[in-house]
């Protein structure tokens, strides 16, 4: 049960061209996530979603403000799923799973195998990433992130590079995995439909990196994309976005 506290967080980037304006990726945002919840961060391109995730994971630092990610008062353990699978192409699937683990005991191997099995990849242990389809590679990426048993799982548009059919099947895998493990998840996406189907809560960011809305979704898991309740909610939330001002040029 990780606790994420973001307070007065801002991130500026230097001007992309000489003499231009600084880029305001995130502007003074505050929010808190507590407990075993699936939270989506939604917004159009360039509104600071990925920057926020990078700051949370420690890859990037904030310009001002603070973020803390704790587990029972101690720094939380993180897992990360990226847009692309980011597997080491020279290592087999199993060796990729082991790369992010600290020990290579039999127990550790069995644990990695358990997570591969949960995403339906029992038969791929000895295969190289190049032998797998894009969707299968991403499933390895998801299994890898879950297998380190993180307190907080950060996911950065993990299905955005996949075709619609594959993305749909992976969402089902993810829901299944999440229902079994109930990790705290921060899931970044630009796809509102996806966010509604997966999350308990949606934080909407607007361009400039400000919080536009914070929506709770109270529907039982797992949810099917075809469920009329999900579809109705998706339409309702999409309707709210029609008023959002999105600049044509960033």
């Amino acid at each position, binding site marked *: 049960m990780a606790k994420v506290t973001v307070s007065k967080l801002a991130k500026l980037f230097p001007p992309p061209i000489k003499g231009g304006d600084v880029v305001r990726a995130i502007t003074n945002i505050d929010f808190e996530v507590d407990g075993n919840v699936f939270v989506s961060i939604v917004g159009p391109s360039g509104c600071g979603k990925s920057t926020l995730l990078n700051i949370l994971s*420690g890859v990037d630092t904030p310009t001002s403000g603070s973020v803390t990610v704790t587990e029972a008062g101690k720094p939380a353990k993180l897992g990360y799923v990226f847009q*692309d699978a980011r597997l080491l192409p020279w290592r087999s699937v199993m060796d990729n799973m082991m790369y992010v683990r600290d020990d290579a005991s039999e127990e550790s191997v069995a644990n990695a195998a358990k997570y591969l099995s949960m995403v339906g990849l029992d038969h791929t242990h000895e295969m*190289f990433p190049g032998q797998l389809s894009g969707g299968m590679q991403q499933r390895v990426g998801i299994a890898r992130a879950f297998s380190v048993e993180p307190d907080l799982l950060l996911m950065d548009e993990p299905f955005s590079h996949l075709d619609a059919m594959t993305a749909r099947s992976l969402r089902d895998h993810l829901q299944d995995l999440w229902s079994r493990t109930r990790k705290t998840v921060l899931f970044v996406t630009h796809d509102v439909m996806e966010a509604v189907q997966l999350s308990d809560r949606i934080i909407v960011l607007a361009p400039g990196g400000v919080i536009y809305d914070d929506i709770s979704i109270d529907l039982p898991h797992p949810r099917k994309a075809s469920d009329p309740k999900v579809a109705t909610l998706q339409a309702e939330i999409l309707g709210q976005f029609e008023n959002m001002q999105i600049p044509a040029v960033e």
Partner: protein
Amino acid sequence: MAGVLVDSAEASALGTAAGLRRRRYLALVTGWVGFVAIWWLLSVWMDSDARLPSPGRVWDEVWIIFNGDPTNSRNDGGIFWNNFLASVIRVLLGFVVGVAMGTPLGFLMGRNRYWRAFLKSPVMIAGSIPGLTYAVMVLVVFGISFVGPVLAIGLISMPYIAINVAEGVGGVDKGLLNMSRSFGRSEKQMFRDVVVPSVLPFIFAGVRLSFSLAWKVGQLTEVFGASQGIGFQIRRNFQLFNMPAVIAWIGLFIIFMLVLERFVLVRIERKLFRWRQWEREG
């Protein structure tokens, strides 16, 4: 993908592939037979062992190089392995020197743009100096010695290794490094498991590129300043006007290079970079 059954259309396509391979071998063999035939005809026409000895004469000389002279008029019995090993050891050692110098330079150039700016010109110049210059230079500095040729071979192969390694280090996937960081991997682990495997194919490309060059320079230094080795034997026999032996040594050298390239380097590469086979298809 592994374990996929092939249908009949694909099977017949595979059959054609086998046929193509057979035809390719046939062309290869025809080429060699044709080459030897033309050589033989020319030697009959020129009718002079001192200018162009026949394939048969050269073959006799190869036999002598391996087994010694049956007439025992020359004390050349079985000199192949001594000279061959002398050359191989020199080239391999020189090559180790080249890799040992080129790899760290390449890492510096690939990782840091100041080092790159500083080292780029010297490395480029070192790479464009003709092999002959190195051969003469080390002879002047070291005289007839073991160190000279080894150093010359090291110097000629170093730039190719350095440039390739720099290319490889510059191209390490940042996404994989970020992934490693976000999973809390140490710098040491990242170097061993991400950087080195990324750079290895580039090092290998540099090795293959510079290896034949290293051999050529090795032979050249032996021609000038050695008392043993394939290059030395070519020069000695040239001075003795023993053309068949010159051609025999050159031929043995070429055969050795071909065997090394086709059967050793290609195999090591295939084994080491098994994973790349699928990367290319994907």
